[in-house]
C-alpha cells in the first residue's frame, strides 16, 4: 500500500450472527460492485476485498505475480501510468504500480484478489468494523506501508496488464429513483411528510460515511407520537429521522439498534446505487413493496450469477469494439 486515504477498509460480505451482542454487520457499502469484482475472479461473491473511497489508493505489487479485479463507480484506474478500463481483471508482477483515483461519479470501488484478502477472521468475518475497532487490519482503515496477500496466490507467471474486461450493465451510472418500502415506524410521521418523501427531491448532505448518509431536503415532520421510540433493530438502508427532522439512511456500519423512528427502508436491489451517490447529488425516491423488491433483487442476482457472460478477454472482438469507441483508451499500451 503506497497510499491510502482515510476511508479504505477490508470488507467481506459482513459479520453475521452477532447483532444480538451489539456488533455491527459492516460489509461493503455497495454489495453489487463488491460481488461483481469477486465473481470476475472466480471468488466467493462475499470474499474479502479492499473497499476504496473517493480518496483513492496506490498499490504496488510485491513478491509474486498477482491477478486482481476491480469494479465500482467511475474511478480513474492506471497501471504503471497507463489508463485501464472502468471494471476489469488485470495481471500484476512485482514492481507494477496500480493507482485508483476518483472519477466523474461514484463513491466506492472494490479491489479483489484470488481467494480474498488474507486477514484474520474475527467473529466469523474479515470485515473491518471501524467503530468496534476490530476486523480487517486491526480494525482500522488501510494506511501506507500495509501489506496484503491473497488467500489463493497466483502460481503461474502472467503478463502485466489488462486480462479481462468486465462490461456489466449494472455497474453503469443510474439516475433512476431509489425504491423504498414504508415502515416500520411510518405511523410516527405526518402523512404529508410521507407524500413529500416520494415527490420531492433530496440531496445527499456533506455528512456521509460508512455509518449513514444524511439527506438534505424537505424536513420531515413527526406525528403527535413524537420522535422517541423504544430502541429496536435497524436493517441496512433504513431511513431514520431524529428530532431535527433531517433524515439519515443507515448503511453498512450502522449500530444494530436505534431509538428514532424509521420512516422507510431502501430495497436491497437499490442499496448499491444509493451507496454510489456523492454529497450534493440528487436523490429521488419511489414507493415499492416486498413483492416488487423481490423481483428486482431476483433479476439482479440472476445477472450477477451470469457475470461470466459480461467478461471478455482483452484483445477479443468485444474489447476491440470498446477500444474503438474510445471507452478503454490505453489498453494496448498497457499490454505492451
Amino acid at each position: 500500500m503506497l497510499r491510502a486515504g482515510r476511508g479504505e477498509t477490508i470488507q467481506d460480505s459482513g459479520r453475521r450472527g452477532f447483532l444480538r451482542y451489539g456488533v455491527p454487520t459492516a460489509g461493503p457499502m455497495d454489495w453489487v460492485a463488491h460481488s461483481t469484482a469477486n465473481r470476475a475472479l472466480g471468488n466467493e461473491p462475499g470474499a474479502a476485498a479492499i473497499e476504496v473511497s473517493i480518496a483513492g489508493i496506490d498499490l504496488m505489487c510485491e513478491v509474486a505475480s498477482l491477478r486482481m479485479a476491480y469494479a465500482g463507480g467511475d474511478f480513474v484506474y492506471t497501471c504503471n501510468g497507463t489508463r485501464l478500463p472502468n471494471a476489469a481483471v488485470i495481471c500484476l508482477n512485482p514492481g507494477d504500480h496500480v493507482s485508483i483515483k476518483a472519477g466523474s461519479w461514484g463513491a466506492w470501488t472494490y479491489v479483489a484478489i484470488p481467494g480474498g484478502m488474507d486477514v484474520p477472521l474475527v467473529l466469523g468475518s474479515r470485515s473491518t468494523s471501524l467503530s468496534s475497532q476490530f476486523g480487517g487490519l486491526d480494525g482500522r482503515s488501510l494506511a501506507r506501508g500495509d501489506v496484503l496477500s491473497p488467500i489463493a496466490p497466483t502460481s503461474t507467471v502472467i503478463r502485466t496488464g489488462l486480462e479481462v474486461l468486465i462490461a456489466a450493465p449494472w455497474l453503469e451510472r443510474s439516475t433512476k429513483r431509489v425504491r423504498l418500502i414504508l415502515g416500520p415506524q411510518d405511523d410516527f410521521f405526518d402523512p404529508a411528510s410521507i407524500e413529500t418523501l416520494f415527490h420531492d427531491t433530496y440531496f445527499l448532505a456533506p455528512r456521509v460515511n460508512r455509518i449513514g448518509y444524511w439527506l438534505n431536503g424537505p424536513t420531515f415532520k413527526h406525528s403527535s407520537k413524537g420522535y422517541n421510540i423504544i430502541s429496536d433493530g435497524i436493517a441496512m438502508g433504513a431511513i431514520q429521522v431524529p428530532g431535527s427532522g433531517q433524515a439519515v439512511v443507515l448503511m453498512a456500519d450502522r449500530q444494530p439498534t436505534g431509538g428514532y423512528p424509521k420512516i422507510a427502508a431502501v430495497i436491497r436491489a437499490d442499496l448499491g446505487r444509493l451507496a454510489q451517490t456523492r454529497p450534493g447529488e440528487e436523490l429521488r425516491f419511489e414507493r415499492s413493496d416486498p413483492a416488487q423488491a423481490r423481483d428486482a433483487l431476483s433479476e439482479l442476482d440472476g445477472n450477477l450469477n451470469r457475470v461470466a457472460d459480461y467478461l471478455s478477454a482483452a484483445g477479443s472482438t468485444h474489447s476491440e469494439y470498446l477500444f474503438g469507441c474510445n471507452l478503454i483508451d490505453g489498453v494496448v499500451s498497457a499490454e505492451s
Partner: protein
Amino acid sequence: MSVPDSSPPPLAAKYLAAGDCAVVVEYGSTVDPRVNDRVLAMDAAVAKAAIQGVIETTPSIRSVLVHFDPLQISQVELIRRLQEIDVAPDCSVVSRRRWLIPICYEGDCAEDLVELADKLGMSAEHVVSLHSSAVFRLYMYGFAPGYLYMGGNPPELYVSRRAAPRPSLVAIGGVVMAVGCTGIYPCPLPTGWYVIGRTPERLFALDRSPIVLCQPGDEVVVERIDRTQFDVLSREAAAGQAIVRRVG
C-alpha cells in the same frame, strides 16, 4: 385485568416490514419485562425453527428484527411461518441468571454524579445508595458491541436524557443512566445520559469465550467498590480474570 408475573401476557404481535430483507415482530412499545420475555422467547423459537432463508435475528427491548434473504423465502411466507411459531412462545427458555457487577461510584469514575444529584435534588450518596441497591434487568445489547442496556432503575432516579450529548466520551466500563434505564459502555463513546460510575469488568472481550457474560433476561445487581478496589480489579480484568460473578 391482572396478569400473574410468571405467565406471558396476552400480547398480540405486530408484523412490520423493515425494508425487503427484514421483518419486525413487535410486542409492545414499553420497557416491560413481560414484553421482553415474549421477545426473548420468540427469538429462541425462531432460532429453533431454523427457517430456511432466515439469516439472523436482533432481539431488542420490545421486538425481534428477523433478517432474511427474500430470494430464499418471501416476506409473506416468512410472516406466515413466524405467526405459526408465535402461537405458543415458551418463556421458560429465557435466561434468568443473576450477576454481581462491581461498580465504583467515586471521583473520576462518576463524572456526572454531582450534577445529576443536584438535578434530582438529593445528595450524591443518596443517588448511589438507590442505584446500587436496585435489581437491574438486561433487556438487550445494542448501540455498540457488549453495551448493556438495562432497566430497573429506582423511580426516584428518573431523569430525561440531556438536550445534547456530553462533550467528552464515556470511558470504558462507564455506567450511565437516564430515562429509567442504566447502560454500561464497553468502549469509549459519546452519550446523552449521565455518567455515575464505572465497572472494571470487560463486558465484551474477543479473546474470551463467551465474548459477553450476561444474556438478555438476566438480572444484574451491584457490588459497590471504592477507587482503590477499582484499580486492583481493573488490573485483574486486564490479566484475563472474570470480575463479574454469577450469584443466581
